[in-house]
């Protein structure tokens, strides 16, 4: 084991919607720290605020108050433009509904974050990802020609292309059957280890949660439990 490096730190993050009577507090002062290489599951019922937490972690939604540090930087001091570039380079997102660009084929969808950066795509790395994901035969297919499991693998590939430190997944298996769920989760774990990435994952599936390093339970906008599962520490 190397040194413990802190990747993510949230300090007293509050997020509320609306004003006055109709004000809803989605997050009520969350403080949290995640280390490099950790595989963290966030669980909670619908409306508990777990998705909002993930969005704020990924620089998608600005908190009402509080700070979020990724590495050394407080990301909400960034301008909108810098925040976009931060997302593109430092974070990989995986969504429940895959969210691929329907007009781009498999390899273009995977390479999109690099292309958005106006960078040359590293074709060896791209091929490596495609091979790891088992999509060699589907390289030039459009998303509409793929099954759900294949589409989710493409979106994992897209999350990996810029070698981000942090991968955020919002119920990545929510739309998949049991067989595909297992395959996708195995892939995620495999790649995270391979590239030494931190994963934060929202799930309803207790079997997925129990396979992670740490389970954070959220209820009504607050963390009610934060468990490290020592058994899974490899």
């Amino acid at each position, binding site marked *: 084991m190397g040194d413990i490096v802190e990747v993510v730190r949230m300090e007293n993050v509050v997020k509320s919607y609306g004003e006055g009577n109709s004000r809803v507090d989605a997050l009520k002062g969350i403080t949290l720290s995640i280390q490099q290489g950790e595989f963290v599951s966030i669980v909670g019922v619908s409306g508990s605020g777990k998705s909002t937490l993930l969005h704020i972690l990924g620089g998608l939604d600005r908190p009402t108050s509080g700070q979020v540090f990724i590495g050394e930087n407080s990301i909400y001091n960034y301008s909108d*433009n810098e925040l976009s570039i931060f997302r593109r380079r430092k974070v990989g997102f995986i969504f429940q509904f895959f969210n691929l660009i*329907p*007009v781009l084929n498999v390899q273009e969808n995977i*390479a999109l974050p690099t292309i958005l950066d106006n960078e040359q*795509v590293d074709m060896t790395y791209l091929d490596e990802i495609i091979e790891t994901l088992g999509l060699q035969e589907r390289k030039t297919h459009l998303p509409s020609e793929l099954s759900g499991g294949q589409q989710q693998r493409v979106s994992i590939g897209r999350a990996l292309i810029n070698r981000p430190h942090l991968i955020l997944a919002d119920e990545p298996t929510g739309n998949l059957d049991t067989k595909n769920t297992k395959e996708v989760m195995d892939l995620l774990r495999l790649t995270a280890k391979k590239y030494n990435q931190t994963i934060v994952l929202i799930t309803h599936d207790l079997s997925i949660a129990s396979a992670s390093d740490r389970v954070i339970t959220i209820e009504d906008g607050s963390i009610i439990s934060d468990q490290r599962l020592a058994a899974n520490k490899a």
Partner: protein
Amino acid sequence: MISSYKQLSSRYLKGNIKRTILTLVGIVLSVALISTIGLFMKGSQLSQIDNIKKLNGFSFHVGISNYDEAILNKIRYNPQIASYGLMSQGKTIPLGDVSVQMNFADQRALAFLPYSLLDGHLPANEHEAAVDSWTLPYIHKNLKLGDSFQVNGETYKLVGLLDNREYTQKSKVGRLLTYKRDFASGEGRILIEINQKANFNEVIDEIKSFTENENVVINEELIRVLKPQSNRSILAVLVIVISIVVVATAVVIYNAFQISVVERMKQFGLLRSIGATRKQIRHIVMREAAVLAVIAIPIGIVCSILALAALQFIFFLVLETSARVSFFHIDWQIILISSIITLTAVLVSSYYPAFFAGRISPLLAISSRLSIRKESIKKQKNTVLKKTVSFPLSLALKNVKRNKNRYTITILSIIISSVLFITFSSLMNIAFESKYVNNESTKSDLTIHLIEGHRDSSVDSKAILEQLKSLGNVSEVSEQDFSFRIKLKDVNQSSATVADIQQTVGTKHPITIVNYLDENKKKKESELVIKVLVYGFIVVISLIGSVNIINTITISIIIRRKELAALKSIGMSQKDLKKMIIYEALIYGVSGSLQGIFFGCILSYILYVAVSGIKKLEWTIPYAACFITFAAALFISYLSVLIPLRKIQQDNIIDVIREE
């Protein structure tokens, strides 16, 4: 493999080919409209210039009489003057009952005169001459082109026939035009053609400063059509017309892009979530606009050229002498300007949708909750309506009213088309009526005037009428103030009939006979040109307007496919759905055309005020145009839902609902 995010634009365009085509059609129509109007105006200006030259018989801009060598030199060395020539009138030589007046012109003056020529060519030397054709029998019996004749002791070869002007026939003084090389200083008049590019007003003021005002004759009519921009009223009309069209274009394009962006909100949100900046999203949308413009503009220009060619073809069918109507004129300047206007309109009007797309929250890609909030539905309290009207109608009313923006955008195309139709048809009517009312002379082919001094009760006009009627070639005769208007059966036999009248009536009464045939022919021709122009133009405008309406309504239904499928899934019958959509279209048609009629009338009044500076006219509400607009808008709205409706009926409900 794409190499830049910018290539996403063309992928999106190819990916949704149907929407791309609808947007393309919108831009094609806009550019076609602008360039057709431009080319139409240029074409009608050219045919007007031609007409005026033909009606007047000459093409010089300014004439100066009583000039001296100093003035002639000032004209000669003035760079603003394209050409000048000298022309003078000589003695009047009696030939029996009538006489001819000698006219001399130098080579450059003759260049201003070919418009008076009926047949043959203008004289090229001192021994050639052209004369009014009605004087031929007086000069020499059976005189034909190419024959020689003697007048005033000189022998001339007849090379051309001049058109029979009314004044020459009434005064019984014909014209004999011949060439003269050297003019004495101060002899006759200087005829001037001003350089096309010069400022006419300045040059005319300068010329006026050379001599007394009464020595200067200005061809106002010709200058007015040559330099329309020097006239404030015409300028106002032009500005109004062009602004309507440009605004209409911008709205159509804005509409198309806004819809295409709203349809892809989730896509843009997704791009944002994986790290696209606002600027990159804006670039994608603006690039789509630019690509569409680059494809659509040439197509639109080809369409407008085709429209013009069709018009020229109609001229060809309608006019005997269509070769002389040079209406089909491709002006590259106008094509370039319309392309630039359209390109600018496309870029400007896609900027807001692009800006809007850039501001889409990345969260939209993730949580579908947000997309429901995209339109705030207006709540209504009109419960009475529900009970009295059918369910499809009340639903249609709710659909129409619930989103003010979409409603406005959809009816805007109807309003604009209606406004265009009403203003243009009334503008054309103004132009048309002012030119061709009170044109008494066109009502007769020949007119016989009793010479003044002999107009008293002793003249038995009934007897003359009877005599005239008994002539073989006369179809109709009417009498008014001691003159008789005659319509001929065969216009080609007019000269024989003139001789007959001289022999029958002319021997008993002192009369003059005026042959209006040539003048009438020219007037009728120019009237026909204007008519074809007016109706051709209105047809093009209506066509473009209709396609525009069809385009907008189709888009407005297609983007609601999912919602309509949901209605069907909860049990709305096919028939009720159809009714609802048709009701919606009719509501759009009624309210759009009513507003269009309102604004169209206002605008046509404004145009009338602008034009009335030139010509005094009465303004009335263009009832006919209003009624046509209303009926056509309803019909087109109805037609335009039929195609998308058929497609929606074939949709598989579940597929559409689950579609992303």
